[in-house]
């Protein structure tokens, strides 16, 4: 797998939403409840980045642009970054790290617990994202990185659960996920190799 000259573009691409959110925030354009809006935006982009990460292998195959495979790592790490910011914004801006609030939210609110589980699943992936880890772990690396699937599934459940009503967005996320899973089942053997 050779990295092409253009593959670095994935990094700034993943940073675009963050830049846009930062500009909105700095310009006071996130409305009357900006911290809540920020948490929601970061959560939304976490999920989009996770799905983008999963799209890269099929995209590389279908578009016959093998270099795109590298963007799995790029967007996977961005997804992890967005979730970390999502969590930090929530814990800092909304809850002010108040131990009693944190304790209550983390133990009583199923959607928060599910979000935490999804986040936990992403840690080992982020920590073993380097080429050395991959070489060192060999086939174990491939198995480990299947954790992305429970992470995305939990992410979608978490997203659907925070809505009061309305499932338009959930439907889009679920459809994309189903298409990706279907593709993976149909082309499964190719995917594990390489």
């Amino acid at each position, binding site marked *: 797998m050779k990295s092409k000259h253009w593959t670095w573009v994935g990094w700034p691409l993943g940073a675009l939403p963050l830049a846009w959110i930062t500009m909105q925030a700095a*310009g006071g354009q996130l409305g*009357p409840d900006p911290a809540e809006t920020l948490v929601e935006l970061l959560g939304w982009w976490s999920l989009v980045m996770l799905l983008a990460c999963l799209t890269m292998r099929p995209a590389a195959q279908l578009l016959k642009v093998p270099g795109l495979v590298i963007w799995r790592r790029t967007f996977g790490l961005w997804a992890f970054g967005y979730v970390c910011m999502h969590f930090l914004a929530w814990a800092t801006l909304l809850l002010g790290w108040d131990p009693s609030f944190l304790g*209550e939210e983390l133990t009583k609110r199923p959607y928060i617990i599910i979000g935490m589980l999804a986040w936990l699943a992403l840690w080992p992936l982020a920590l073993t994202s380097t080429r050395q880890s991959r070489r060192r772990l060999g086939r174990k690396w491939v198995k480990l990185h299947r954790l992305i699937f429970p992470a995305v599934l939990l992410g979608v459940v978490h997203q659907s659960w*925070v809505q009061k*009503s309305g499932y*338009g967005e959930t439907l889009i996320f679920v459809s994309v996920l189903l298409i990706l899973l279907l593709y993976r089942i149909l082309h499964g053997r190719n995917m594990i190799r390489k």
Partner: protein
Amino acid sequence: MIIRHKDPSAPKSHEITPESVYLKRRELMMLGGLAGLFSAMPAWGREIKAVDEEASRPLWLKDQVARAIDGAPDTDETLTPYADVTGYNNFYEFGTGKTDPAENAHTLKTDPWTVTVAGEVEKPGTYALEDLLKGQQLEERIYRLRCVEAWSMVIPWVGVPLASLLIKLQPTSKARYVAFTSLADPKQMSGVRSPFTGIDWPYREGLRLDEAMHPLTLMAVGLYGRTLPNQNGAPFRLVVPWKYGFKSIKSIVRIELTETMPETTWNMLAPDEYGFYANVNPAVDHPRWSQSRERRLPNSFFDPNWVPTRPFNGYDEVASLYKGMDLGKFY
């Protein structure tokens, strides 16, 4: 609180309204206007639309709103700026996002507007809004609005106590509940067209008759001294300040007095999360989040402005309506 009955020979309300009230109202309107302009400037271009709407409202309504008197005990809480009240709210008929109503509600046609009154009343019929409100003294009421999503605002409504309207419509002795229905016109309402809101239109809400007759219960036609903007439920909506915001149904086209408890939209959708009563209650959590406190809007990045949520949203005078009821069970 006095419920006013109109005597045709009595002086018109604006003739007896003390000037001080008018001055205060004027200050308030300017304050609202200024705050609105300031916070509207960068991103929230909705102020413009609201002003356009105001210009196209029927004269009788603008006139009646302008003659509103100061109706409620004053609160020293800071008013939520006009731009936030009108730019950030829930009105699923125009989309599920908080800024969707402000963006999409300009397609709503609010004049002419009729309200069908049905069920257990002596004077049923389909009334033009103007006739329903004829002779009613409008009042300005500054109320806290507590959303079930744990945020809140302070809003100066203009309206008439529902009791004043009901007295004229004469509920029969069988009437025990009041059922309200919103307009649900897919042609005018983008959210009603959308297949993804999960809501069985039309939006429906209800009150027990004694709740409906309580002097705090308001039918609003204005806010901040102007007629209601479309996104806030123009031209005619309910405001029940001691209940979660979703009870305060917007753009009402039907009022029916019933013997039995009516079906209500959120209760039908998720009965374990939203009860018929939906009284603001810090002791009863939403199954998915805490109701013990609320973010008073607008807030900022560095201070979410949490304030403790009070039983009945701080309107203790309604507590007697629920004497002997287990409010954990009848949430």
